[in-house]
């Protein structure tokens, strides 16, 4: 099994699906000759032609809206937002059109919106956001957020094959820093299934995306018996996996890079509070960004985004409770 970076795995998954299925095509800004801002589609135009690696004008509603129409007609569009932040400019098509067509009229919209998300590189308030909670408040959209290279490929494959609009959050900080074994050829990770990223007995860290490698690093450095649940899919949420790990350890830390209020952490904490209250040995804690825009300057950005030391401190507190 070859080792790949998270970024290579996304490319690999997309290429595999485009080879397998003629109806899969990509559309986005600067994805053709340039290969995309992060080079996910590098070489794709040469292999698949300009029509299936469609360079779009700077118009996010057009990217999403055109994909909706193409998907209704049976194509499998994979949209690239150059940065996840720009989905705000295509939000209307995503939320009001794509997300509601099946409920209202039974029209399935099989499309993926790839969303390079996350901060940590001085991208500032418009190139660093983690907008997943926006989508979770919009019925009809599935939401995935891989943390490993293997999952990045497997979840993308599943997202492309799913008959619904899927928001695929790929964390930019993981692109070149996460590297693991990725199955060659077809690799599917079903949507809606979390995975245990590390086994433990004393505390559960429930995380996704960039917070998973951060949690693993913290657990290793602390040398504590910590279990880490990688949610992988945020909608539909693997509720059973959340409850199972909490019932096992009795303590839960929910960690994500996105802002705090009404985020995934709030939802997971509410789930635990209502379904596993009697299994808890400590209050459910959250480690998240505060409710502020992501600032530009490195010390300010570090102050906002959860750091390794923050993760370790949150673990220590809960373990000592």
């Amino acid at each position: 099994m070859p080792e790949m970076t998270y970024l290579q795995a996304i490319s690999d998954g997309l290429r595999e699906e485009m080879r397998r299925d003629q109806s899969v095509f990509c559309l986005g800004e600067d994805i053709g000759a340039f290969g995309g801002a992060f080079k996910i589609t590098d070489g794709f135009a040469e292999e698949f032609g300009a029509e299936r690696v469609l360079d779009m004008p700077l118009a996010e509603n057009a990217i999403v809206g055109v994909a909706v129409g193409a998907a209704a007609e049976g194509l499998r569009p994979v949209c690239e937002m150059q940065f996840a932040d720009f989905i705000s400019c295509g939000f209307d098509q995503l939320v009001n059109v794509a997300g509601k067509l099946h409920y209202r009229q039974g029209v399935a919209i099989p499309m993926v919106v790839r969303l390079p998300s996350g901060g940590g590189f001085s991208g500032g308030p418009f190139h660093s956001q983690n907008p997943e909670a926006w989508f979770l408040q919009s019925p009809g959209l599935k939401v995935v957020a891989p943390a490993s290279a293997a999952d990045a490929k497997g979840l993308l494959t599943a997202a492309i094959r799913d008959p619904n609009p899927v928001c695929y959050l790929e964390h930019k900080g993981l692109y070149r820093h996460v590297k693991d074994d990725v199955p060659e050829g077809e690799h599917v990770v079903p949507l809606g299934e979390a995975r245990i990223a590390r086994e433990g007995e004393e505390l559960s860290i429930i995380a996704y995306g960039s917070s998973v490698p951060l949690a693993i690093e913290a657990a290793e450095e602390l040398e504590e018996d910590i279990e880490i649940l990688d949610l992988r899919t945020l909608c539909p949420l693997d509720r059973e996996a959340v409850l199972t790990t909490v019932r096992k350890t009795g303590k839960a830390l929910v960690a994500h890079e996105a802002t705090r209020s009404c985020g995934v952490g709030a939802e997971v904490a509410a789930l635990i509070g209502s379904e596993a209250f009697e299994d808890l040995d400590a209050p459910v804690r959250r480690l998240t960004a505060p409710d502020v825009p992501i600032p530009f300057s490195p010390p300010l950005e570090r102050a906002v985004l959860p750091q390794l030391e923050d993760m370790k401190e949150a673990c220590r507190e809960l373990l000592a409770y």
Partner: protein
Amino acid sequence: MRESESSALAVEPVRGAREAALTREDRAQLYRFMAMMRAAEERAVTLYKQGKVPGSFYDGRGQEALCVGAAFVLGPRDRTCILHRDLGAHFVRGVTPDRYLANYMGRTGGVTGGKDGNMHFGDRELGSVGMVSMLPDMALVATGMALSFKMRREPRIAMTFFGEGSTANGQWHEAMNFAGIHRLPVVFVLENNQFAYSTPNELEFAVDPVERAAGYGFPGVKVDGNDVEAVFEAARGAADRARAGGGPTLIEGVTMRMHGHGAHDDMRYVPREMLEDWERRDPLDRYARRLVDDCGFSHDEVERISTEVRSYVEECARRAVDSPMPDAQTASDGVFAEHWAPLGDGQAPWSRWSADQSPTSGDEANGSNGHPRFREAA
């Protein structure tokens, strides 16, 4: 004018275009569909006043020629995104009045089965992807369907409708621009009904939107939106051109919204003389006169069509009222799809399609969703 390769206006001859040659039956159909829209909307107003329609009520009185004339050119495999003042286009494609009325009442017999109301529907079985309230979102969706036709080299077109109010929104530009860049087979039907809710043309744009088409590299055509055959001719030209690879067309039909934005709107902002002036240009009256004066119809024949339509709509209204309300248990059903399924084909009543040799044309493609009474009477 500099013409880049991608934005050049189409000059190639239209392949397969035939003379319009509306037959006598085509003309009877055009009148029937307009009369059906008028009758169904009048019936719906009654249901609204009886308190059977939750929410408000919206109609397209005065705009019958525009939606019927444009949709009449469509072939079975073409696709539509139809707006809330275009009931006639739904009828042309095969939606029956009972399903329209039931949709207004939130009943299971409605096109959306109660999931969405009033005119927010499209029958997927008839190749229609229904509108949302945000305008003109569907212009981009239709453009996307057109992109899929182009990618698959299929001689099909998408047709989408929007009002002049929509041309102020950025998504209008995004759709026009993208369709122009790739010369996609899409027909944009702009219904200038003089008002966006209460806002008149002079506060909506500085330049007539039809003139903007040139800026996107494709033709803009302005027609009398209350003349069903004029609309038909403009749409036929646009559809033939799109089907032949010539790219999009923007058709502006000039018309008038004869009722308020919704039933709650008293139209105090519309000058009385303006309404009276447009009343004299009523598309149904005009076409009835034309059928008699120029097309060899007798008064009785035209009257008979009206009468038949009214009794058919009445029968449909009974069916709609009898349709049950949805089971509350189903409110959470259908948020996600289990699988993708192709959209069905729409009815294509224009005689050109039944004469066509293509395998999906003719009666078979018209499906079982038609208006049986009129098909027998035809």
